[in-house]
């Protein structure tokens, strides 16, 4: 593997990850609200799904059987019928209940931390794993250059394998084979 193909492959991985994450972040262009849901009930349901039911624990207004949630759904339908937009209705609920009412934190300011931390953690974990594997493979290659029998075995337990030095297991084997 040349350095060039390695770099190209790395870019492919980054692009695939980015493509998987981008729609979640809303970076992909959303269709205009009117086109997406022409039907009033479906639009009301979509708005209700973005709101937290105040009397429940972690349930949306759309999913909750609570009476307050039902009243909120009715209010959303009324407001849609009166010609309000999705964002106006969401803004009304935020105005009365605070940002807490939103099931998904808005993507702006300090709240980006909430959105980016999981992705950053996944990338950091992948980078750590890649660095570890690369080092292990390099160590394996170096030892195979010195000794053609590169894998640890009963006969040759001290050879470092892919996980580096294989210590105790080999020693026990050696002891038993000595006996």
């Amino acid at each position, binding site marked *: 593997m040349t350095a060039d193909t390695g770099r190209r492959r790395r870019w492919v991985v980054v692009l695939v990850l980015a493509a998987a994450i981008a729609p979640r972040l809303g970076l992909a262009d959303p269709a205009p609200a009117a086109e997406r849901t022409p039907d009033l009930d479906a639009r009301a349901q979509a708005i209700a799904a973005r709101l937290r039911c*105040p009397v429940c624990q972690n349930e949306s207004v759309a999913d909750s059987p609570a009476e*307050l949630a039902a*009243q*909120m759904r*009715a*209010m959303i339908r009324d407001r849609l019928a009166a010609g309000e937009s999705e964002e106006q209705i969401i803004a009304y609920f935020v105005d*009365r*209940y*605070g940002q807490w009412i939103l099931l998904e934190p808005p993507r702006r300011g300090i709240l980006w931390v909430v959105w980016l931390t999981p992705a950053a953690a996944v990338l*950091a974990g992948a980078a750590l794993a890649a660095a570890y594997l690369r080092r292990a493979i390099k160590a394996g290659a170096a030892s195979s250059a010195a000794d053609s029998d590169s894998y640890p075995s009963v006969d040759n337990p001290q050879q470092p394998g892919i996980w580096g030095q294989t210590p105790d297991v080999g020693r026990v084997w050696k002891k038993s084979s000595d006996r």
Partner: protein
Amino acid sequence: MWLWAALAVAVAVLAVLGAGLRRDPRRLPSPLVGRPTPAFSLPLLNGGVLRSEALRGRVVVVNFWASWCYPACYDEAPHLQRLWDRYGERGVVVVGINIQDTEAGARAFVRRFGQTFPVGRDRTGSIAIDFGVVGVPETYLIDRQGRIVFKHAGAVTEDLLAARIEALLAQGR
């Protein structure tokens, strides 16, 4: 070195998440405190409609309750009646707004506690949602200028509100 940095970040994130777990998810600051009271018109149990404009210039206690809300609503009911008895003639109005309830349940509750202040039913819940009500009971204190100055979630007591009402009455008229 890198590993230690990653570990430090991970510990920091966990600490933030852990601190979040220790907070009471039901203790919410109302964004309405300090703002004008949402306008409402409340159909009263014994006929007539109470409009919020009619309360301008008065100190008002707005209490959201339900007859199934036991024990908190039952605990606070006598306190609200005592506040009405004590401050009614000084211009203070106690308003009971019954939500998520049946007509019969609401009437039985009012009879049981001999409540004489205006009580009405918010059948569609639109008044409650306008106030950002999360549960019952919830009580809002409104000053003479029509601003919400205090919100309490859970049962109120006479003492809790009396001190605040006195302060609002003392602010010129």
